[in-house]
C-alpha cells in the first residue's frame, strides 16, 4: 500500500468521523444512527491508520492487495447501513400510515359531533348601507 493511498484513506475516514461527530454535536442525529455511523467511521480509520491490522484482515480473507480489504470493509458497511435504513423507512412508512388514519378518523369524529358552523352573514347593498359599511366597492 503506497503512503499516498494510506494518507488518503486516513484523511477520508477521519473526515467522515469529524462530520459524524459534528452532526451529533448539533443534534442532527438520533443516537442510534450516530452510533452506527461512528462505528463505521472508527473501524475504517483504524484499518486505514494501523497497517498490520489491515494486512491481517487481508491475509485472513485471502486478499493479496491489502487496500482492497479496506474497500471490502467499507462496502460491507455501506450495505449494512442501507439495509438498516430500508428497515427504518419501512417502519416510518407504516407508522405514518397509522398516524394519518388516526388523525383522519378523529377529525371526522370531531366534525360529526360539532354543530355545523354558522354561515358567514352576507348583506345586500341596502343592508350594508344601513349598517354603515357603504356599498361594496
Amino acid at each position, binding site marked *: 500500500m503506497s503512503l499516498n493511498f494510506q494518507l488518503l484513506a486516513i484523511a477520508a475516514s477521519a473526515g467522515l468521523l469529524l462530520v459524524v461527530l459534528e452532526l451529533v454535536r448539533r443534534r442532527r442525529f438520533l443516537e442510534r444512527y450516530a452510533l452506527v455511523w461512528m462505528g463505521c467511521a472508527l473501524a475504517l480509520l483504524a484499518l486505514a491508520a494501523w497497517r498490520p491490522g489491515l494486512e491481517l484482515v487481508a491475509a485472513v480473507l485471502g486478499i493479496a492487495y491489502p487496500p482492497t480489504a479496506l474497500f471490502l470493509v467499507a462496502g460491507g458497511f455501506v450495505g449494512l447501513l442501507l439495509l438498516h435504513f430500508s428497515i427504518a423507512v419501512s*417502519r*416510518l412508512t*407504516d*407508522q405514518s*400510515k397509522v398516524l*394519518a*388514519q388516526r388523525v*383522519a378518523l378523529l377529525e*371526522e369524529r370531531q366534525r*360529526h359531533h360539532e354543530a355545523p358552523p354558522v354561515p358567514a352573514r352576507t348583506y345586500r347593498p341596502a343592508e350594508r348601507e344601513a349598517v354603515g359599511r357603504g356599498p361594496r366597492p
Partner: protein
Amino acid sequence: MSLGAPYSFSHLAVVPAYNEAATIGGVIRSLREQVPDFDVLVIDDGSTDGTQIVAESAGARVVRHPFNLGIGGAVQSGFSFALENGYDYMVQVDGDGQHDPVEINRLVETMDDDPRLDMVCGSRFLTKDYKYPSPVSRRTGIHVFAFLLSRIVGQRVSDPTSGFRLFNRRAIAVFARDYPHDYPEVEAVLMLHYHRLRMREVPVRMFARGGGVSSISSGKSVYYMIKVLLAIFVGLVRARPVVEPGDEAPVAAAGGI
C-alpha cells in the same frame, strides 16, 4: 375503545375514493336509494379535486386522509371506523361506479343465510354471460391469481381482485388490525384463510368505470403482478405474521423511531 354517537343502523358502506369527484356523488345517491339501511362513509384518500365536498353534500360522512395512503390504507380506515363504531356488517364499494349497489342486497342475504361466513365477495366471473371490459393482460393476471389462490385456500376463488366485498365483525376486527398496503384484495383473501375465517363468492354484475382513472394503469400491471405474487409466496412460507390481539405490532410498525 369508546363508541361514537349512537348509530341508527349497524350496516356500513365504505367507499374509498381518490379524486373521484366526478362519480362519487352518483355512487352515494345510488347507495342511499338502493340500500337505505347502510350508513355511507367515504374515505377521501387525500384527493385534490374536491371529492370531500361532493361526498358531504351528497349526504355521506367523510374521513379525509391528510395525504394519499393508497387503497389499502383507505380501506383499512374504513375497517377501523366500522370496528370503533360497532358496525355488524361493512361493505366495500368502489367510488368510480363499477359496483352496482343493488347487488349489496345479494351479498347481505348470502351472509345472513350462513352465519359461518366472514366475507362475501362479489365476483364478475361466476355468471356465464359476464361482459367485463378489461384488457387481456389484466384478465390474465386475475386468472393467474385465481388459480394460485384457489389451490392455496382450498376453495374456488374466481375473482380475487374484486373490491366488492361484505365483511362481518370478525373480518372487520382482523383487517382493522392489519391490512395489506398497495393492492390488498388478493392478500386479504390469504389473510382470511390464515385466520381460519370463511369466505364465499356470489355472482354480481359490474359496470365499466364511470370516470376517473383506475388505480391500476396498464404500465403498473406488471409491477402489480410481481408484487402480489411475492405476497402470495411470502404468505405461503408464513413469514407474514398473523397478528393476534396481544401480539407485537405487524411487520414494520415495531420499535421506536
